[in-house]
């Protein structure tokens, strides 16, 4: 066992660190973005700079502007960038899921056209899978794409599309065959988000923010050469996308970690045995998940593909964020019902309270994640389904 890098990884790490130190502001510099446009501008510039240095999409091929590196290098770079205050949230979906899918299954022409501009930060991508009537059950989606005069005419509605409001292109999953069994009637496309018939509406969250969007299609047209899979092959394409999602190993998805909470609150908040027991329980979860991350990175280095067991992190941290928030706010009695500046220096806690709730739902509910572990890891049978093989 060894917690240090291999010589080549260590070399990569110091190269990444040196470059970041020369180009990125240190964390805690207190940089904020006044609005989405401001963030967007900063993110574009930063992505272009990363692409120049070969850090834009480390595992993607060099011929498209990627780094041509290993999955471990991607993890190492992510660890290093996390120490800096860089714009986040604009390119992650596109470069983590859409473009890898494109490169895996797209035509040469599409790869030539779209991969490089996305990697260099010129074009932004979003994912268009979920729908109002197809949340956990993705294959139940209803957005229709019909072949009309050699092009596809799209009608329907997508939901929970992160970043759709500033995206140039979207990876779209739509139903092209109403008569085929549920999973066999889907096809995957690239859609121009600025085209006629595509309308994006932000969804206001409980917190007032709007990270997600509804996307409406009314006779939006997609040329047939922007089809990514054979007609009816969309489900397999979607599975490819989700596999890339799992490669997001070692990413910090916690809202607030236990040691951060201890630093924030100080030891006085843990004066009684009950609070200390909670502290230790949370620490054991956080620390255990971090060690599981080490194990996943070790597997990655040996060429093992991460499995569905990755979902354990989200399963623990959403609920724990709610628990931590309740603990802190409870201690503050009447003051714990305040928000924003009146709550004081506790924005992390307020986020844990609200986003902890969201985290247990977005990207697979707790219930779906437990199903996945039970079925794919433990090999237990799936629920009886009334819809197997039907649409």
């Amino acid at each position, binding site marked *: 066992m060894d917690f240090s890098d291999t010589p080549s990884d260590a070399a990569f790490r110091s190269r990444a660190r040196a470059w970041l130190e020369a180009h990125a502001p240190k964390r805690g510099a207190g940089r904020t973005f006044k609005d989405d446009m401001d963030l967007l501008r900063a993110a574009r510039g930063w992505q272009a700079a990363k692409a120049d240095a070969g850090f834009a999409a480390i595992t993607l091929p060099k011929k498209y502007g990627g780094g041509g590196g290993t999955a471990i290098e991607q993890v190492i770079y992510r660890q290093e960038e996390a120490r800096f205050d860089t714009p986040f949230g604009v390119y992650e979906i596109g470069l983590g899921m859409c473009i890898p899918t494109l490169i895996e299954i797209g035509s040469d022409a599409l790869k030539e056209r779209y991969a490089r501009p996305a990697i260099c930060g010129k074009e932004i991508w979003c994912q268009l899978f979920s729908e109002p009537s197809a949340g956990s*059950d993705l294959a139940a989606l209803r957005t229709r794409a019909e072949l009309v005069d050699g092009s596809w005419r799209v009608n329907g509605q997508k939901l929970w599309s992160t970043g759709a409001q500033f995206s140039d292109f979207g990876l779209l999953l739509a139903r092209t065959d109403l008569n085929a069994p549920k999973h066999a009637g889907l096809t995957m496309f690239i859609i121009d988000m600025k085209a006629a018939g595509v309308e994006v509406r932000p969804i206001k969250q*409980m917190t007032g923010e709007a990270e997600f969007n509804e996307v409406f299609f009314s006779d939006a047209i997609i040329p047939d050469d922007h089809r990514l899979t054979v007609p009816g092959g969309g489900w397999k394409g979607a599975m490819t996308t989700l596999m890339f999602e799992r490669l997001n190993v070692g990413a910090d998805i916690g809202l607030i970690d236990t040691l951060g909470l201890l630093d924030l609150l100080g030891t006085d908040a843990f004066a009684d045995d009950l609070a200390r027991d909670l502290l230790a329980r949370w620490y054991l979860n956080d620390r255990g998940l971090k060690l599981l991350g080490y194990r996943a990175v070790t597997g990655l280095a040996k060429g093992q593909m991460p499995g569905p067991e990755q979902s354990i992190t989200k399963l623990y941290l959403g609920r724990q964020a709610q628990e931590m928030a309740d603990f802190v706010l*409870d201690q503050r009695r009447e*003051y714990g019902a305040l928000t924003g500046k009146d709550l004081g220096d506790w924005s992390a806690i307020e986020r844990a309270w609200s986003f902890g*709730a969201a985290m247990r739902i*977005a990207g697979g509910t707790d*219930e779906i994640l437990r199903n996945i572990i039970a079925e794919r890891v433990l090999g237990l049978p799936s629920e009886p389904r009334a*819809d197997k093989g039907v649409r």
Partner: protein
Amino acid sequence: MNFDFSEDLKLFADGLAKGLAAACTLADVRQCVVDGRFHAPSWQFLVDMGVPALALPESDGGAHLGMLPLALAAQAIGHALVPVPSFSSLYAFTNALMLADAAEAALWRHRISDGAVLGCVCLSVPQSLTFDGGYISGTSAPVLDGDCADCAIVLARGKNRTFVSVLVPLSDSGVRRERLASVDPSRPLSRLHFDRAPAILIGDEALIEHTRDAASVLLAFEQVGAATRALDITRDYVLQRETFGRVVGSYQAVKHRMAEMWCAIELAKAHSLYAAWALDSRSLDLPLAARSANAAASEAFRFAARECLQLHGGIGFTFEGNPQLFYRRSRLYSSLLGSPFDARAQIAARLMVGERPLN
């Protein structure tokens, strides 16, 4: 053995529940969150139904019906989730006034009996809050409805480090209100700043202690009502929403979670019922029973609100969804009287010195 409300009271409660449901939908509650104020038509309905006068003595314009009808009114208020000055004026201020002998207290009892005037109560004492020679000075902790109340009853430090309960008309000079950002803007919190504001001594610390007990009991009913509604809307949702070809409500993970919600609510309801009896009959059991009701109802509402949000899936954490209304309210309500942890610590302390329920 008759451990239940009378049929008459249940009829009265049904009427209140129907009226409130008609007066205020969850969409109206959401609008109150946007507007940052309580729902005036619902309060007017409660006034028309005589709710503010229910427990007050006849001599002060009240109906002298004791605490049981008020408890059922609280449950109806909770079930409708209507934002009204219930905790502040109906529960806390009313009960505090009923313990005070001062002539001014009688005057204010009269004024609140027809609902035109609102009160609020500051239950905890920041270091700075002092009363001396007829004047109060200092800054309060966050107070529910401090922005719109006409009068406050405040626990303050008197001479010789003792605590005193004083009545402070809020229209007087020397009072400044500072509106604070509340997790549930439909139920606003404010800080009251007193700068030698005229105040009338109405009692010692025991007055606020009893007020806290009484308010705990009534708030427990409101929380039981709200938790029940959270379960109701969850049931409605999971019965219509389908996934993988079945209604969501047919999955065991959902069913069992909802069964647990129901169990927690039933236990909280039983504790609240006993506490209402203890309050109404002035039983020595009140402090233990009130804390038990508070702890059980706060936990039940918090659990129901959290899982209501969870079981609604994506819509649950949108602003347009209803679950967030319950999630906010439960956060607010479990902070007003100290946390469930505080309540349990007090319960354990009482049990450990040998206190036992009488029935």
